[in-house]
């Protein structure tokens, strides 16, 4: 049962990573790419970490995994903000149809 959920979460995580990469490659401008990347990847990593945490041999190992996710989230969010703000300041125009 645990293995089943684990596999499900891991596969879902991989799917989000794929989505993030497709977004990075296909979206038309910096802001949309930023959006695709930060959100999709962080969710992807979160799902994967959840899958792995189910398998973890001890509570501390699972805790370390969650800590890693928290750090990535924090870094991802802050960096996304900094890059978006920097791009606006430097006059990078958002994409319009």
């Amino acid at each position, binding site marked *: 049962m645990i293995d089943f959920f684990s596999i499900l979460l891991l596969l879902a995580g991989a799917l989000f990573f794929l989505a993030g990469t497709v977004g990075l490659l296909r979206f038309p401008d910096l802001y949309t790419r930023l959006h695709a990347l930060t959100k999709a990847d962080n969710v992807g990593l979160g799902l994967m970490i959840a899958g792995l945490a189910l398998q973890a041999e001890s509570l501390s190992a699972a805790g370390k995994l969650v800590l890693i996710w928290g750090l990535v989230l924090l*870094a991802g969010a*802050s960096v996304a903000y*900094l890059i978006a703000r920097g791009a606006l300041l430097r006059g990078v125009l958002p994409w319009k149809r």
Partner: protein
Amino acid sequence: MEAIDIALGLFDLLLVFLLLWLAWLVMSSEDLFKAIVLFVAFGLLMALVWVRLEAPDIALAEAAIGAGLTGALLMAALDRLNAVKPMPAAAVVTSAKREQPSLPSKVLPLVALVLIVLGLGYALLSLPDVADGLVPNVKEQMAQSGVKNPVTAVLLNFRGYDTLLEMVVLLLALLSVWSLGGVRKLSPRNTNPVLASLCRVLVPVLILVSCYLLWVGADAPGGAFQAGSVLGAAGVLLLLSGWHVEQKILLWPLRFILVLGSGVFIIIAAVLFFTQGGLLTYPVAQAGWLILLLESAATLSIGATLAALFFGGIPKSRVDQ
């Protein structure tokens, strides 16, 4: 089992291919910024290679240095390059001119390179398959080393003298950078709230992880170098967010922390030399805490050195004004 081997084989193959491709791209890239990003990616993959080679100690070091600090250092270097040289049109023209070398000067290095690669490849392939090296010797003496991680035992005990000299190398790297000149002032305090809050969360965690890596180094992969790199990253982050340092801290305490690692090493070496009759001969009972002491001092120095290298020039102090 077989499917796993195939998957791992494919993983390794792709890794090697990506590494070679990245290495080529880094060297051939005209755009320096692109080269830096590619180099950071190269560092990430290198860490994975160390994982696959079952060298977690180096993977950890590569993660800290290759993925984190190298990028930041190179970015800072690029920034200063741009400040020094705004790339006038004339320079671009000459560099374009230089790109048409004569045929022999193109071909000859290539031929030499191919010959060297072939020769080295042949030499490497004819190495004995399993070289035990000093592994049995290390295992035999582990009980006397005072630690449980063989890498730490080699670095701090069996070949501690090398590490002593390496600490001097690190200090020399900083002295050489300072020798280049360029007294720097700290950048003004940054008011970006997001960056500030990032620092507030991240810096304590960085310091905590640094302590953890230092402590765990006695039994498992980790140790002064990895811990110091993480500490250095904390310093870099603080510098980037416009951390204010008191002028008087820059003068004496900074220098003191910079020499702490090599200084403690030399003093312990000298004390052991006069009490035990040998350079860096630890008494077995005291080896454990002596190594911890040395590593703690080294961690502080490595962290301070890396942050100071990122800073670049000599911090402004009253005496140098």
